[in-house]
């Protein structure tokens, strides 16, 4: 049996497996840390900054999804300051692109929307960016709406790590970053796409959806990704 390391999360001492991240250890012990870009079964990238936690002895905040546990680590997951930062991170996501829940296929089943509600985001304090973004409708079964994309890259990692097709990438820098399929080919023309749809299931918002679904109709099964990984023995 692997030796466990003792870490303290919100005052509670828990036994974590070496190599686990703070987020994994917390979730294994029913401790909730919000996250958008993290997905069980995929590599972690620390992109969304929602899982930031306070680690004693470290002057800055650390993302729980990429910080491994160490013996004696003491973590605070929900101080008022963390809550305030998470709210800011969510508001910035809403301000960046055109997230209109009222007409979104994923409304009611959206991870971004759920987190916003959990964090009491009732308004956005920053001016909206209102970018003019495309909707890629070229794929016969699926649709990609850049307006609703938060660049979490779950689709990128799902396609590369689970399906092995690596259709998706993030191109551009900063505010110009865009999800692209096969080096900027329209999705419908991407020859490496197997149309398996796992990217759609992994997408936390309505950015990727099956065609023909109306508002509020698109429910997803993100757990399918973690299940596939575990059935392959974590490979």
């Amino acid at each position: 049996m692997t030796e466990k390391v003792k870490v303290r999360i919100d005052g509670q001492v828990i036994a974590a497996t070496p190599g686990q991240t703070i987020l994994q250890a917390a979730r294994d012990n029913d401790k909730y840390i919000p996250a958008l870009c993290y997905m069980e079964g995929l590599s972690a990238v620390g992109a969304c900054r929602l899982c930031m936690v306070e680690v004693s002895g470290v002057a800055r905040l650390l993302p729980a999804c990429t910080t491994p546990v160490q013996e004696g680590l003491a973590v605070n997951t929900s101080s008022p300051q963390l809550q305030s930062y998470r709210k800011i991170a969510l508001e910035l996501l809403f301000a960046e692109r055109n997230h209109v829940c009222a007409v979104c296929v994923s409304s009611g089943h959206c991870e971004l929307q759920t987190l916003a509600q959990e964090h009491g985001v009732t308004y956005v304090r920053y001016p909206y960016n209102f970018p003019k973004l495309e909707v890629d409708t070229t794929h016969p079964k699926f649709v990609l709406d850049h307006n609703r994309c938060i660049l979490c890259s779950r689709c990128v990692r799902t396609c590369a790590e689970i399906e092995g097709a690596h259709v998706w990438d993030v191109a551009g820098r900063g505010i110009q970053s865009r999800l692209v399929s096969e080096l900027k080919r329209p999705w419908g023309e991407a020859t490496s796409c197997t149309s398996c749809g796992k990217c759609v299931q992994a997408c936390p918002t309505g950015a990727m959806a099956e065609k023909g679904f109306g508002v509020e109709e698109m429910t997803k099964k993100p757990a399918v990704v973690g299940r596939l990984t575990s059935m392959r023995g974590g490979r």
Partner: protein
Amino acid sequence: MTTKKPTSPAKKPTSPAPMDRELVAYAPAAEPAEARRPVVKKITIPHVSRIEGHARITIKLDDAGQVIDTQFHVTQIRGFEKFVEGRPYYEMPSITARICGICPISHLLASSKACDAIMAVRIPDSAAKLRELVHCAQFVQSHALSFFHLSAPDLLLGMDFDPARRNVAGLLEEHPDALRDGIALRKFGQQVIERLAKERIHPSWIVPGGVNAPFDPEAREKTLAEWPAAMAIVKRTLALWKKTLDGFPDEIATFSNFPTMYCGLVGPDGSLRLYDGNLRFIGPDGSIVADQVKPGDYANYIGEATLADSYLKAPYYKPVGYPEGIYRVGPLARLNVADRCGTPDADKELEEYRQRLGRIVQSGFHYHYARLIEATYALERMKELLDDPAILGTKARAHAGVNNLEGTGIIEAPRGTLIHHYKVDDNGAMTWANLIVATGHNNLAIGRGVLQVAKRFVDGNKIQEGALNRVSALVRAYDPCLSCSTHALGTVPLLLQLQGPDGQLLDEVRSE
């Protein structure tokens, strides 16, 4: 019926303004002779209250304080036709439903029908019946809102009633039973919508291809149990209205009382249709000028003119041209256009309506009466649909991709004919959209009606609040849906100013 000149100048100290301009359609491009005379005074009604949306009315007066011209401006721009470009077509119902919070069902239905056409599907029978049922429920709630909440303060309290109390609060004091009836009737319609579509406003139940869930038998039983009370309210209200109607001779004579063409959907037998049918146009004399026009052919018959001083376009009957091809839609038009309603009680009421007012009713004031007859029809039609076992069918949605690159959906919304016309690319992304909303069709008629009623009631030498209220009440008679907002209480600030040639304020009426 011809246009009547007002015959009772008693309410107005000066003689009635000449009515010779009435038959000249409101056309800003070709200024009428009177308008070239020096305009020394201008009255602006900056907010028309108790309507859906925002409008402004300008009344121009000559040296003697007589009304020489009026303008009806719709002051907001929505831009739906443009910003939907690029969106997948099947999102259109939920996007366009946001045009209106009172009749989102109308937009959901017209849009879904346009999408059905793009998918080239014939939706399941139960889906068509469920869509018609929810549409009838919306007619009941919307007509109740228009009659009781928005117009009853004018109709039951009086046009000259104290403006501070000329609202639903005043109704509660003076006519509590009528107000309770109105609230109960609207509630019934809204609850049926909620039972069917899960949400009262902007539901996601109506989808391209049908509806996304079949009808719950329990909801059907509940609706059937509540139905008789709703029907009793409509019958009571009709009886009340028939008694009240004769108290408004001047309003009847001047509220858009002029001959126009009319347009509405009819069934193959010429009977009234709200959800599905073909277009019929009749001339001012009632003769049928175009019949059984299929939705996809509407553009051969309806043209749209852009007005210089309003964001609302002005549709006209194309074969006649602009501006002579003025036509009206909505309850008054539908009852003029249809041969009969097709349900027993509504047909009885329609017969009495025609005996009282003639086969073709021209006065816009009778929109209110027509609205109540339509509420009767909608309730009877609901009963027929609820009694039909096919409405409980479990197949309620057809699935398909893009099979046509263009589709048109037309329904009769509570306020009139509603047209959604879409074009998509091979992938189903919207490339073009045209929406003609009921109030658009009536734009020319409202503009002309404002002039007619202003000439009769407004005296520039002394602004009477009641007179200006009549100008607003004319607009209200059309129950225009200028946007998605409701001003159910008459508390929208109303500021009327009479200005001299140099902009000097001569007189002012303000309601808080």
